[in-house]
């Protein structure tokens, strides 16, 4: 089974509130000195792909749209256990919306050709729209499964586990298909050791530009269908009412009384 995982490199989403800044012109987060990481659900998707390879055989290719900096994310994916990686990079890709990104990924996947399964994280850890995966399935005309957490069997068709509110379900789809990945206890991303990372950095990563994937520039940069009009950081500091007391027991009494007064319990 050949699995292709689409990943996005983002600014570390764990940046604390007080260091978070936005650029009013680009309407996006300011990079500052924050590290870049693989978007959390995409990292989970890499883990799911590697587990599937370990169970059912095959290979894993990781692709990403980004600048040269995204090579670092691809190296990490290789160190986790992916077999090959491709960077999709061209100045023309900058600022395209989710429709454009799906087109770029679809063109790259058509060039890659022999895939059985495409995995995408359920949503990126920055803007969190969750569009590119389902869009890509539509663009390629593939069956689409969303919010699955693992590949449970592969025998002509692929079966997936999908967590539900009260348990889980097993879904089956023909090959090839696309799945978006959510996390559960079975797919915590493995650690990429320094030794493996060093080895991964020696693996050459091809860079495909617009011309390499045969996409028409004008076609790609059509009018954006989704736009951020305004972005702001909400004022979130609230004056916290501290419950005092001479002893823990007294504090407990006072807290219980206050919750009752406020009609919260």
């Amino acid at each position, binding site marked *: 089974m050949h699995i292709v995982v689409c990943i996005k490199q983002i600014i570390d989403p764990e940046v604390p509130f007080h260091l978070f800044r936005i650029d009013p012109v680009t309407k996006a987060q300011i990079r500052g000195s924050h590290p870049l990481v693989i978007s959390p659900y995409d990292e989970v998707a890499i883990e799911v792909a590697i587990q599937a390879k370990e169970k059912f055989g095959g290979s894993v290719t990781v692709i990403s749209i980004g600048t040269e900096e995204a090579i670092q994310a691809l190296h990490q994916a290789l160190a986790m256990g992916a077999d090959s990686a491709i960077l999709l990079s061209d100045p023309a890709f900058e600022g395209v919306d989710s429709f454009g990104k799906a087109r770029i990924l679809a063109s790259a996947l058509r060039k890659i050709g022999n895939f059985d399964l495409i995995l995408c994280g359920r949503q990126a*850890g920055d803007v*969190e729209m969750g569009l590119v995966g389902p869009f890509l*399935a539509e663009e390629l005309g593939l069956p689409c499964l969303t919010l699955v957490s693992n590949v449970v069997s592969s025998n002509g068709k692929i079966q997936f586990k999908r967590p539900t509110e009260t348990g889980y*379900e097993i879904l089956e*789809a023909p090959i090839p298909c696309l799945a978006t990945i959510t996390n559960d206890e079975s797919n915590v991303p493995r650690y990429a050791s320094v030794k493996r990372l060093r080895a991964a950095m020696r693996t050459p990563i091809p860079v495909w530009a617009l011309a390499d994937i045969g996409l028409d520039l004008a076609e790609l940069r059509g009018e954006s269908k989704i736009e951020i*009009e305004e972005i702001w950081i909400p004022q979130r500091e*609230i004056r916290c009412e*501290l419950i005092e007391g001479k002893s823990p027991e007294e504090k407990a009494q006072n807290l219980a009384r206050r919750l009752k007064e406020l009609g919260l319990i």
Partner: protein
Amino acid sequence: MALLTFCLVTGSTVPRFALELLAAARRLSEQLGGTPVQTLLLGSEVKNQSSVLIQHGADQVLLADHPSLGNPGDEIVLNLLEEVVCQFKPQVILLPHNELGGGHLGPRLAYRLKTGIVTDCTGFDVQNGNIRWLRPVYGGKAMVYMRTRGPVQIATIRSRAFEPLKPDPDRQGEVHEIKIVPELLSSSVNVVRRVEVPGIEGEISLDRAEIIVGGGRGMGSSEGFSRLRELARLLGAAVGGSRPAVDMGWLPHSHLIGQTGKIVAPKLYIAVGISGASQHMAGAGGSKTIVAINKDPDAPIFKLAHIGVVEEWEKIIPPLIQALKEMLSK
């Protein structure tokens, strides 16, 4: 041109999300100058649910009632939604931002219709007849207004962002039956089986709880969580936690609250031994009242909580349980 909302009935009652969507649609209709509200009602033997939707704000119910729609796969629901949109050409489509609407239907429908979509909206406003959709980004660290272009606007609405309207038994509306042709019922993805995993007895689900008790790294062990469960039982609350608690194995993954877990918005959230990292607050920040219990007076949670107690949880939770027992037994 109408506003279209969505209601899939898989159980015996209309799910809450459908009523929340109707509340959102009514507010939007008002701001747009009285656009009618249609609801696509899907299910098996669900005709009698139409009146519930009308009482909660639907002007017209588009009824897709068929034995094979009792628990349909996503592809089938998508086919039906696409069919209805092509027939009725709504101006706006509101879908729930849950595993169905946000994960699947909304984005795929948007791509098929070559139109813009905004997912996970918590609000909107209308200026000169143009809708701007409000939503959090960057795990709630920033908010945006987004605009879409295309023949129809699609938005998926975050759970609990809108309160269902009070039902009005005098409200009038009509029911229009949708013809279900067999082609609409085909799907390349099949549900092989559904497995119910029984939870702890009497446990309340995070998605439905009015009160949630959450624990973090500061709980120190899984024993700590048994005390929180005791507190939760007393309050009729659900138990959740932050990522360190899940990573340490003190809490099952399904109870994770945060950017990579559940996003909750209870009336009351009691955060115990939780520092207030952005990853966690992305999931719990929407709670109406946050109570923080932490031994560190400098923990960031005290800047995000409405009520705070600086104390070790081991010292305050037992007397708090005692105090609440006495108070609630009165």
